[in-house]
């Protein structure tokens, strides 16, 4: 049923029809009609951020923890440009976002009007798709199509740029049938090719050294995909490793779990990837942080790759059995076909493989030397993990970017999907605090913790003010090493320990800073007091900024340095990491 309304009202109506309860935004001249329309209803609740980048990361946290799209509303010009980092982050990590940007009136476009920027031009390469709405007739279709495109296929961010005169214009609102939207040119393939899936199962049935290499695609395919992954792993008896983005899809408490793989992955996961005979990649994309040196990447394996994005297939690594489709559908088929062939896992056939894996596990690649005088960052995360396990609340973890992020991935363990939010592809410092705010908006009763670095957290610190305003009790757990630790580590590794600008000098007093924002501040620098301080943080009913002063020069290990194959991983007992990389390796990132 068509109904007459203004463009601004259509925006709110479409959000309502899409079931969007929360949007993250910041007003400005060009967006005012939409803000006015929002003011006159109460289904769509608006979270006022402090910087538009914060809005995008909040929407990402919201999306990743719920499986629903995150929605952002910003004004023209600087509002739109401030959103670019989060859009790019969402593109690289395949997070469904719909970002509405206001634009100057159509009559002023191209005149360098006040707060005009070429938003569709700027965001073309950092969105899955974007629109400039030039006529009110197009608006209802575009609004709904944006949600379809953001959430289906390989999810991603979509921008809708709406000029101010279109927001005022009156037109007919309707909710288009999903099938009428882009039915010709946009048809993501969700069902995997049956013959290919059968070939994959044939290979798996003959495998002697198999491994599941899973990624964020399993999480994007919904909670059933994680259930099915568990079932397939159980049916086959194969070991499972995952990328940073896929953590939680397979339970860390399961004995078949190998830990994360890649640059800072476990020894056993990386060695098993190197030596396997059948690799089953489900929803991962052979990122360079995973493969290391391509010509030495898993040299003797037959590779199966399940991905919903045809462009991910054979982009980096040539695979033997490509399967284009939704991870969940393909996993379901795999289970069905496996069951039709056998009733037993390949326990005996792969017993030797598991013996080998046990030897690698015994190396203890995540071990570190603890101390009673200074808090080790790994230990701080272990204590935090133990403390949260005793909580009755659901626990969500976000991170910033750096060493603390990798330590969190190594030492905090996830048994469920959608509970771990981190910036993987773009590696955006400043992601974690706003992402935590977004998660908390979606899960008001949960315990949401941002495991942070003192440098990263300052990039979007002001969102603490948002947390205070909306009484969102997020906990910011800062592993403060007074350094951009990851940068310092690379300078040790590659640049003769010349620490060019990697110190965090003149740091704020985080306790006072928290108090200035109206939050609680805690500081701890003694191992013996850490547990009590963590309890204090968890008990506080409100946002907390917890400054944990940790060992300053700890290296994040294990590490596969740039240009090295998986089996040349640096283990924790390496004394001097500065001697490992040759001249050629120094050029790499």
């Amino acid at each position, binding site marked *: 049923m068509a109904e007459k309304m203004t463009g601004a009202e259509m925006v709110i109506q479409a959000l309502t029809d899409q079931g969007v309860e929360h949007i993250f935004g910041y007003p400005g001249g060009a967006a005012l009609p939409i803000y006015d329309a929002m003011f006159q209803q109460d289904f769509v609740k608006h979270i006022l951020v402090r910087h538009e980048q914060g809005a995008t990361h909040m929407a990402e946290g919201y999306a990743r923890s719920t499986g629903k799209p995150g929605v952002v509303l910003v004004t023209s010009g600087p509002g739109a440009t401030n959103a670019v980092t989060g859009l790019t982050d969402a593109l690289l990590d395949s997070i469904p976002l719909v970002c509405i940007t206001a634009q100057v009136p159509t009559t002023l476009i191209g005149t360098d009007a006040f707060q005009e920027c070429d938003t*569709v*031009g700027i965001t*073309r*390469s950092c969105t*899955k*798709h974007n629109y*400039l709405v*030039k006529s009110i007739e197009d608006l209802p279709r575009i609004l709904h199509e944006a949600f379809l*495109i953001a959430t289906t296929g390989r999810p991603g961010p979509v921008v809708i740029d709406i000029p101010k005169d279109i927001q005022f214009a009156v037109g007919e609102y309707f909710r288009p049938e999903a099938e009428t939207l*882009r039915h*010709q*040119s*946009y048809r993501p393939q969700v069902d995997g090719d049956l013959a290919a899936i059968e070939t994959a199962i044939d290979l798996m049935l003959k495998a002697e050294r198999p491994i599941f290499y899973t990624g964020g695609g399993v999480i994007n395919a919904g909670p059933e995909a994680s259930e099915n992954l568990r079932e397939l792993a159980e049916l086959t008896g194969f070991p499972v490793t995952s990328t940073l983005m896929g953590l939680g899809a397979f339970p860390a408490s399961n004995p078949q779990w190998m830990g994360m793989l890649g640059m800072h992955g476990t020894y056993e996961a990386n060695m098993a990837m190197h030596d396997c005979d059948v690799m089953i990649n489900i929803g991962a994309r052979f990122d*360079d*942080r995973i*493969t*290391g*040196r*391509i*010509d*030495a*990447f*898993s*040299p*003797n394996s037959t590779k199966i790759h399940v991905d919903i*994005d*045809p*462009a991910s*297939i*054979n*982009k*980096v*690594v*040539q695979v033997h059995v490509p399967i284009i489709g939704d991870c969940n559908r393909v996993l379901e088929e795999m289970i069905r076909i496996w069951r039709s062939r056998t009733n037993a896992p390949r326990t005996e056939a792969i017993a030797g493989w598991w013996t080998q894996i046990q030897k690698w596990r015994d190396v203890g690649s995540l071990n570190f030397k603890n101390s009673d005088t200074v808090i080790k960052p790994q230990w701080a995360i272990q204590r935090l993990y133990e403390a949260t396990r005793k909580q009755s609340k659901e626990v969500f973890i976000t991170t910033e970017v750096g060493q603390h992020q990798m330590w969190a991935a190594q030492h905090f363990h996830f048994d469920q999907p959608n509970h771990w939010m981190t910036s993987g592809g773009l590696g955006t410092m400043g992601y974690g605090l706003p992402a935590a705010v977004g998660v908390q908006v979606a899960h008001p009763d949960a315990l949401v913790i941002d495991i942070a670095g003192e440098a990263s957290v300052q990039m979007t610190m002001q969102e603490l003010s948002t947390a205070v305003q909306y009484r969102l009790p997020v906990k910011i757990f800062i592993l403060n090493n007074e350094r951009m630790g990851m940068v310092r580590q690379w300078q040790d590794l590659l640049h003769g320990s010349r620490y060019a600008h990697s110190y965090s000098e003149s740091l704020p007093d985080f306790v006072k800073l928290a108090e200035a924002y109206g939050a609680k501040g805690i500081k701890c620098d003694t191992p013996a007091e850490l547990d009590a301080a963590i309890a204090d943080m968890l008990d506080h009913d409100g946002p907390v900024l917890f400054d944990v002063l940790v060992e300053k020069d700890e290296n994040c290990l294990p590490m596969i340095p*740039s*240009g090295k194959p998986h089996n040349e991983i640096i283990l924790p007992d390496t004394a001097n990491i500065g001697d490992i990389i040759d001249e*050629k390796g120094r*050029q*790499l*990132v």
Partner: protein
Amino acid sequence: MNAHLQPTGSAYFLTQETQLSERHTLSVLVDNEPGILARVVGLFSARGFNIESLTVSETEHDKRLSRITVVVIATPKVLVQIKAQLERLVPVHRVHDLTAEGAYLERELALIKVNGTGDHRAETLRLADAFRAQIVDATVESFVFEVTGKPSKIDSFIALMQPLGLVEVVRTGLAAINRGPEGM
């Protein structure tokens, strides 16, 4: 075994490309909507693919469809990526690699301005006739020829005009279509 499989543009591992580049003509069916050309061209520049020639025009007005003919020079592996990346664009309906899919026709049109008097003028006309170039403008000291054909034919004609007083050339870029009864 992966030695021949190098990432297209990873800064992680710098290696020499070992595959040889080939020239391929792609036909891309797209929705004719604002910004579509920018999307296609932006994709090529963002991912470091090279465009040799590009032609765009609306071909089915009722359905608002355009056909983009794009000539690329790339290794087989990169060609697969180009096709997959193009297909990923929301307004792109289909991408056909005409070179890979069998027999097809290629045509291009050029307008060529040649100045000349006396003997040169007569020679110019003789050659134009041999190439079936049409005179579309003439003065006592100049001609503008219209010539259509395969790019190689146009290349040869231009080369011949060079010593005879060639002033300038405009080319449309390639239009290409597969042979036989099947449509795209």
